């Protein structure tokens, strides 16, 4: 009944009237996701390594951080950062983007830290031992030997985190970030109609997650089981060597 009613009166023209808002929304959603994710991977790497540390003063802060950000809702974190943390550090709000990106980054880092820790731990102990036995300090062994192997194993779960973050980024609407969902809300408010704007928002998110999934699948394929470079590159390097 409801659906038929909706189809009879469908009015996507109002979406069209607000197309700039949606386009801006896509842009904001993508930027927030990108900044949050890249920051989250880099910070997560340090946290993940921190959680593997034998030094208590490194391990416990890392563990506490990860537990806190995984154990509390992202929505609460966003509000804490936007309304409490940033104003008390800088004396004023720095706008939704800084707060939103910071919250997403800090949250994403906690999840990535666990993925990175597990990835590093999955590399056979003998690899680290072989590197250390050659005289490599722990840091170098990590960087040249363990991480390059671990990263391949991290690609699929890190990809899932990217998709999750893209969807979770819609929570920044609560601090009036002008993302995709916000555009939907504005239209809904203006016309007092709810089907079209939210369906539009949903479809936009769906398209983005679809594109991201394709991207991740491509990366996963490139980093598949074998370490041997593709046939083309190998011929090239043989040619160069001879």
């Amino acid at each position, binding site marked *: 009944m409801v659906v038929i009613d909706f189809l009879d009166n469908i009015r996507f023209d109002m979406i069209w009237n607000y197309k700039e808002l949606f386009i801006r929304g896509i842009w904001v959603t993508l930027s927030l996701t990108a900044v949050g994710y890249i920051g989250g991977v880099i910070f997560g790497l340090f946290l993940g390594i921190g959680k593997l540390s034998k030094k208590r003063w490194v391990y416990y802060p890392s563990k506490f951080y990860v537990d806190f950000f995984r154990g509390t809702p992202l929505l609460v974190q966003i509000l804490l950062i936007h309304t409490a943390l940033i104003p008390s550090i800088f004396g004023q709000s720095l706008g939704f983007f800084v707060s939103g990106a910071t919250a997403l980054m800090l949250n994403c880092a906690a999840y990535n830290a666990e993925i990175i820790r597990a990835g590093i731990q999955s590399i056979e102990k003998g*690899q680290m*031992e072989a590197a250390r036995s050659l005289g490599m300090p722990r840091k170098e062994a990590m960087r040249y030997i363990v991480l390059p192997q671990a990263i391949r194993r991290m690609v699929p779960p890190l990809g899932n985190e990217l998709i999750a973050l893209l969807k979770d980024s819609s929570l920044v609407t609560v601090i009036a970030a002008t993302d995709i969902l916000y555009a939907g809300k504005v239209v809904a408010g203006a016309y007092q109609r709810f089907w079209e704007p939210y369906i539009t928002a949903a479809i936009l998110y769906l398209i983005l997650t679809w594109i991201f999934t394709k991207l991740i699948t491509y990366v996963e394929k490139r980093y598949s089981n074998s370490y041997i470079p593709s046939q083309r590159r190998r011929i090239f390097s043989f040619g160069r060597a001879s």
Partner: protein
Amino acid sequence: MIKIKGLHKSFGELKVLKGIDCEISEKEVVCVIGPSGSGKSTFLRCINLLEDITDGEVYINDVKVNDPTTDINEIRKEVGMVFQQFNLFPHMNVLENITIAPVKIRNMHQVEAEDLAYQLLEKVGLRDKAHAYPEQLSGGQMQRVAIARALAMKPKVMLFDEPTSALDPEMVKEVLDVMKQLALEGMTMVVVTHEMGFAREMGDRVLFMDEGVLVEEGTPSEVFGQPKSPRTQDFLSKVL
């Protein structure tokens, strides 16, 4: 060149090494034999501090290895190790496996390191495999690359932990041949092995270890010919 005094090692409650005293001089080839679980690997791994030492002292060239002020990385540059499971770096080709440590740790120039790598590959008979990846090699080839990799740091001592135990029988010889050549060139070597033939032929000295103590030591002909301890006799009767 290696001096070990009263070496004890425990894993929690489990006492694995119970007071080992031993000296190894330059150019000596020492083979360590003994039953499984007797602590041979642990003994070897204490020498380059892959396991931390519970009690006792290990000196390499008069530098105390287990001293908090010793930079263990400096020691390890001089002590090569070859593992039972090869532990080649699977994401690097053979050349990169060999050059990574000299380039990153000894600050050797890439070109120079590759020259050295080719020389070492020549020595272990794998020059044509320089661009292969570990997964494209047989076990024997992998172990020979692992030996070349350790040699690239120009170590003064080489530690071998059962280097042929993970190999198919037909590949054991190619690895032992490389080790023999190395011994003949005067490398100081500590070899944990089940290859009694190698110990007999190449060992200057054989140590028999059982339950974390050195039960008997001597030249191969002494240990294999007239073993004194009943435990050595018992062990040898099972493996020979």
